[in-house]
């Protein structure tokens, strides 16, 4: 199977293509996000940071990546 195989996910509400073998870890690194400052949800369940390298992203997954912004 060529490495370029892509799957489609919904990331922060928008559809996006990622490589078929992508993990949450690779996704966060690929987006150049500071891993210590974001939280990730896969299909409405928290993906704990320690599980990112083993969490494979599947076709059709809905992923949310959040961080802290100003608030009261």
């Amino acid at each position, binding site marked *: 199977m060529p490495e370029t195989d892509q799957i489609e996910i919904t990331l922060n*509400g928008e559809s996006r293509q990622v490589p078929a073998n992508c993990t949450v870890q690779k996704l966060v690194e690929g987006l150049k996000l500071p891993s210590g400052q*974001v*939280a990730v949800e896969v299909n409405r369940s928290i993906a704990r940071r320690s599980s990112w390298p083993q969490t494979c992203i599947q076709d059709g997954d809905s992923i949310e990546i959040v961080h802290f*912004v*100003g*608030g*009261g």
Partner: protein
Amino acid sequence: MLENQNDALIIAGKEFHSRLIVGTGKYETLEVMRQAHQASGTELVTVAVRRVDLSDRSQQSLLSCIDRDRIMLLPNTAGCYTAEEAIRYARLGREAGLSNWVKLEVIGDEKTLFPDNQELILATRTLVQEGFVVLPYTNDDPVVCKKLEEVGAAAVMPLGAPIGSGLGIQNPNNIRIILEQAKVPVIVDAGVGTASDAAIAMELGVDGVLMNTGIASAQDPVRMARAMKLAVECGRLAYRAGRIPKKLYAAASSPLEGMLV
């Protein structure tokens, strides 16, 4: 019980030397926010949880402007209208911040931003069971505050007035009743417009004050932050000093003896 000699604010076993909790929203720049935090002396600041904007990555990170050696983060669930939604945000906040503290907000009405207390109590119960330290923002309603405490809230945070209104403490008598019955810290959250509002809250005997707009939207936020710091300290001192009873008539301060005849 050990005497709390330095008069620290203790929430869920954690000691704070400032009784002023401030927000991170509405500042014109993050640098102004950083300076305001410093001037306020705060050790606990609220933050909101939102999607990372993947199309615009130019924004400076909020966390890079918070002195985390001195200041603890308190993620909120602002913008949530159901217990389910608030629980989801609380879990995300815990994961992002590696702390199990949450300022729990479940809003019931868009215009007043008054809480939906039924949902709030439900969410508090669930999050406490999940090991969260829950600080719920609520009405100045003694019954609701009591129920929140019963389901395990680490503090209760009645509003002084609607969020961002700057109206000051609208119902000091309710705050008094809440204080009389509470066994957890009582923090006045929302409604503080200027320094005297914060002092009045503290003089009632509340354990702390939480504010955002009052500082962030002042013409000079850094100066107002210092004013709020002093007001909270003044109010606390006056409360501990014990004020004189109010009387209708005068009582002379100078002796009547020794007057010339």
